[in-house]
């Protein structure tokens, strides 16, 4: 396998971007990444998108998007694993470069979520759950994570305070991120008085509906050196799956797909969780950040919540999590999220994060964990600055 790295990154505007269509958002992120990397061509592209067909009625994205990037004819593939589609695009690009099939590959992600009504968006997102045995009975995504939260609370004594700590910390980080959809701080009181969506989760426990795209240029270390731009190595890539039906899991308080993905990525990288200096994780709901931190092995079950309350996951804590603001504050255009996590890790490891948000003491190595549905899939990458 060849050594693979990320040499340039790009983002579109994130938020309720009514002036831009799906193709515009993607083109903006793609051109930003190409310019940032300084590459003069691409050999191929992988685009992650969860369900543009349901959100805007548009499929066949790989062809549409390469055309609008000004690269008709470019070999391109769209990949899907619900909300982990972006991570899967990065993994696919990594495999193609590592194998020697291509030298310069773009991994991108996009989702346009506000060109439909709120009810239609809810239906589209529910496509990541089991239609016949969950959605049929009235399950919603907040509802599924709420059920996981109740199990976690019953088994480990996880509290409302711990959930709130995740939202407060991520909004604090996001308040310093110019790409964030909701760049404002929230107080514990505001989180705990926000409207209840599915007990025990309130609206400020949930990530938002977001339009947005992100892209990274994946290439060999040799090419990155010639380009003369800052680059980070992809040391390991892991993917895991699990039953998408919650009821079929032996333990609903852990995310087995994340455990499998992390183990695969660590094994490939020759690293362990203790080597990681910070992480971007998939906080689609506050409880998810707690469960993922345990599932990837950073904390024993039930220990992440207390550690978060003690400030360990803050920017200046022992193990910063979601310096970008996470899905909670930065936004969650589902197909783009996994790519944007790598964008954040790139900025942090190359010292390019915005003022106030840069993790202190120049961290060298980190991980990005992306998740599909209620934990039916997960993709993990281990990244290190050269």
């Amino acid at each position, binding site marked *: 396998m060849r050594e693979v790295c990320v040499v340039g990154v790009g983002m579109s505007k994130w938020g309720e971007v009514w002036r831009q269509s799906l193709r515009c958002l993607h083109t903006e992120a793609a051109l930003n990444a190409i310019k940032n990397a300084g590459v003069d061509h691409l050999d191929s592209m992988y685009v992650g998108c969860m369900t543009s067909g349901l959100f805007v009625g548009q499929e066949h994205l790989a062809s549409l998007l390469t055309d609008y990037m000004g690269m008709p004819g470019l070999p391109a593939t769209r990949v899907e694993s619900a909300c982990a589609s972006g991570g899967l695009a990065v993994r696919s690009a990594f495999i193609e470069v590592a194998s020697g099939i291509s030298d310069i590959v773009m991994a991108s992600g996009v989702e346009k979520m506000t060109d439909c009504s709120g009810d239609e968006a809810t239906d589209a997102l*529910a496509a990541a759950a089991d239609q*016949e045995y969950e959605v049929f009975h*009235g*399950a919603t995504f907040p509802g599924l994570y709420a059920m996981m939260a109740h*199990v976690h609370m*019953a088994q480990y004594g996880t509290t409302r305070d711990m959930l709130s700590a995740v939202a407060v910390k991520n909004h604090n980080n996001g308040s310093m991120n110019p790409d964030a959809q909701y760049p404002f701080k929230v107080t514990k009181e505001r989180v705990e008085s926000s409207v209840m969506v599915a007990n025990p989760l309130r609206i400020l426990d949930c990530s938002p509906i977001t339009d947005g795209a992100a892209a990274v240029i994946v290439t060999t270390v040799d090419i990155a050196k010639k380009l003369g731009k800052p680059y980070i190595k992809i040391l390991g890539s892991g993917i895991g799956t699990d039953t998408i039906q919650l009821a079929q899991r032996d333990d*609903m308080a852990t995310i087995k797909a994340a455990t499998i993905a992390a183990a695969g990525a660590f094994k490939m990288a020759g690293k362990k969780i203790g080597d990681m200096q910070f992480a971007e994780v998939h906080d689609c709901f506050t409880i998810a950040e707690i469960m993922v931190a345990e599932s990837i092995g950073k904390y024993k079950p039930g220990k992440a919540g207390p550690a978060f309350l003690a400030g360990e996951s803050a920017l200046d804590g022992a193990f910063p999590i979601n310096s970008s603001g996470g899905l909670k504050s930065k936004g969650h255009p589902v197909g783009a999220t996994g790519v944007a996590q790598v964008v954040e890790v790139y900025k942090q490891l190359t010292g390019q994060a915005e003022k106030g948000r840069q993790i202190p003491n120049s961290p060298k190595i980190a991980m990005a964990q992306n998740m599909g549905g209620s934990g039916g899939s997960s993709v993990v990458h281990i990244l290190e600055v050269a």
Partner: protein
Amino acid sequence: MTMFSSRNWREYPHRYRLEATKFTKSGKTYFPKRMVDPVTGDTEQEMVTLPETGKVITYTIIQIAPPQWGDQAPYALAVVELTDGTRLMAQMTDCDTTKVKIGMEVRIEFRKIQAEADHGVISYGYKFVPKWY
């Protein structure tokens, strides 16, 4: 999403009669039916009918509901472990949602689940009710 009648009646064995798969090698029952035991890889199986009582393993109260259930919100949704160890998800009904708790004993009843507006398909299936109800 439009509910086509074939998609609806295809699930009748599960939703109307609680038919499940019991694998010979592991003795474990799965609902809905499967062709392969996910643990042992066994395909030798028999059809069994699920027991109709169990207890709540976890739950939530859906406050903001999809449009089909808008007039029912708030409603409780639960994962129940039946007496044979099989788990399934469905709505709780005929109960005070604020009284739903982990460990609560329930039984299964046949109920209307959802109806498409005006002339669409009406879907029936199982819901949980408190055991004492």
